[in-house]
């Protein structure tokens, strides 16, 4: 019996050790996705302007362009697949280790709100950062299994998949891919290989029905901004016009957001009908601008933003 207990203790210790080694690999990245996650959840940062939201935030706002126009020091913490509650979670987790920014640009997209709000896209990417108390707390709220992911290596390791193992090994050996190198202060241009001609696609009409959680998350972001004296901005960044047209209740949704912004005195920038949306050469997908489109949009937005910014 003693033999079996010893065996079990040894195996569990080994699992913790192996998992920790994999996490060290992930945290060793100096470029790319995991460098961005390290920056958000682990490092102390002093950026005065933050961009938050989903993949639209991540791939539409180029901080370098914004910095050059507005003379700010910005960083993009938008993450692919983030719903608004997740964007809030990432924002709060960022604030744990970093200096409070002066400006926060929240990209709101009416496309994202039709998704299941409990979805945590690519959730294993957060495993290495569960020591960030705010991140852990928020993730556990969305998915109680995060309790097991944090404490039980045999529960979390199978979810790491070859993708994350590969990233971990690359972290140890300082190997970067062209995708890693494309990151600019958290901004990620959508890779050209995944591009499709948005004109050739079929668009199914749909309705965005914002759930209570969306408004609660929005309230929380506004509350944090107020309490920390952060200047908040709402932005709806451009999507291809056919995608916009397929949202049947777009106007109702946008006017609701406008009303909230007006009530709370938050500057609101709506680019959903901007001329950019008509130019298919600026899009790599119906919902995402390409690098050229992102730079152009960032430039336009930065100029519009200038007068409102706190420096």
């Amino acid at each position, binding site marked *: *019996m003693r*033999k079996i207990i010893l065996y079990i203790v040894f195996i569990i210790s080994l699992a913790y050790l*192996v998992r920790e080694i994999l996490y060290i690999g992930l945290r060793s990245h100096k470029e790319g996705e995991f460098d961005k996650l390290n920056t958000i959840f682990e490092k102390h940062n002093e950026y005065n302007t933050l961009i938050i939201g989903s993949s639209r935030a991540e791939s539409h706002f180029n901080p370098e362009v914004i910095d050059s126009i507005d003379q700010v020091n910005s960083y993009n913490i938008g993450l692919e697949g983030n719903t608004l509650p997740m964007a809030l979670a990432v924002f709060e987790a960022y604030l744990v280790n970093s200096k409070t920014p002066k400006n926060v640009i929240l990209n709101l997209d009416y496309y994202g709100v039709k998704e299941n709000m409990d979805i945590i896209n690519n959730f294993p990417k957060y495993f290495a950062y569960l020591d960030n108390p705010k991140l852990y707390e928020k993730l556990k709220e969305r998915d109680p299994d995060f309790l097991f992911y944090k404490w039980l290596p045999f529960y979390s390791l199978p979810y790491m998949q070859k993708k994350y193992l590969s990233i971990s*090994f690359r972290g140890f050996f300082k190997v970067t891919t062209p995708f890693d190198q494309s990151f600019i202060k958290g901004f990620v241009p959508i890779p050209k290989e995944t591009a499709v001609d948005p004109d050739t696609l079929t668009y199914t009409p749909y309705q965005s029905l914002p759930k209570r959680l969306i408004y609660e998350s929005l309230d929380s972001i506004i509350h944090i901004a107020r309490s920390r004296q952060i200047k908040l901005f709402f932005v709806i960044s451009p999507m291809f016009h056919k995608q916009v047209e397929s949202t049947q209740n777009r106007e109702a949704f946008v006017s609701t957001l406008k009303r909230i912004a007006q009530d709370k005195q938050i500057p609101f920038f709506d680019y959903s009908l901007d001329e950019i949306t008509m130019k298919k050469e600026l899009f790599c997908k119906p919902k995402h601008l390409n690098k050229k489109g992102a730079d152009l949009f960032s430039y336009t937005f930065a100029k519009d933003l200038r007068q409102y910014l706190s420096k």
Partner: protein
Amino acid sequence: MLLLASYFFYMCWNPWFGILLLATTLIDFYTALQIAGATNTASKKRWLCVSLISNIGCLMAFKYAAFFYNTSVFAIQLFSGSSMDTMANLIIPIGLSFYTFQSLGYTIDVYRGLKPETNPARFALFVSFFPQLVAGPVERYEHLMPQLTERKKPDIDSIIKGIRIATWGFFKKMVIADTLATIVNPVFSHVQLYSGLTLFICGFFFVIQVYCDFSGYSDIATGVARLFGIELILNWRRPLLSRSLIEFWKRNHISITSWFRNYLYIPLGGNKVPYRRWLLNIFLVFLISGLWHGANWTFVIWGSMHGLVYIVELIFKKQFPNLKVPGFIGWIYLITFHSLSLIAFRANNVQDLFMIYSKLFSFHQNLSNSLYELKKVNDLFPLLLSIILIGFLFLKELNEEHGWLNRFRSFDPILKPVFYSFVFVLIFVFGNFNANEFIYFHF
């Protein structure tokens, strides 16, 4: 209890499969009793025929009906030009080929003089014992039944050994075989996109994949059976270290090879027939063994290739009895042939197979281009991991074969737990938990 557990295990796939298993069991139980009780040879033969027809008929109905029908349709269309509808494949009850062979082997043994089992429940357990029910090893009655009857309580060392064997089996399946599958499957699904050398490398990867998949299952079955105090027969003796095809078939899938030897090759006359007939017998056994693996012409081609090369080796051995082939050369030959032949085993259809072989023998091969193609299939990491895992597998098997670490035997109480703990943890790190089925479940 074990019988109920076995039926529950089997019926988890599909409850109706349990009825087929029960029917096979009851028919063979009854026919075996009739064979043993028969007073003359004719009557014995009659009852044996009942068992043969029921078992082989079952296999034919579920596994081969569509194959033979569609082949006939193809032949008719070829000669008459008229069009006919083809038949869709039936769902093959999982493990059908294994338990029908095990059960049929028993009735043949009774025909040859074995004392039949009189307790139907005990016989049902022999046929359905869950660790080896769905993918073997195909057990002999004389080996398994006494253990099922006695049911020794396993001691702690036996349990630990069982867990180790099963752990290594899970590692082979979930880590090695499933990692290789992430490269092999996409390539064989689109063979037209890849060069000959890439296809050959994937053929080699498939050799390792199918070995780890199948021997992995056997290890899991053996390990789990040990937890119940039962030792299953050794099914694999490091076949990939063989240096000739003859040696390979002494080490590879031993339970099914010995089944074919005992119940097909020997009744055909074995080697006690004229020389040419003997060679024909060998070829027939390989041909049928190929068909046993699957109802597709690709399996028939695979079986025929093995049969022919086996015969060539026998002739060569007879002509040059003193010829000693260096071990490494022999191993390269075996692995090359096995990779080429398993391409037939893996190809989706005969058209794909011919396309692969025509590309393989085009002699316009470029290693760097192949590595680029393989890298593109599924990133560099799975490719590197596959190469490391293959190296790891061969090192372990070479050590077992040659006892390289025997001088450190005194450290076994420490080394073995550490090694298997690592293997256990690595299953969780690199293992594929997306329920990839075992290849042989469908045979």
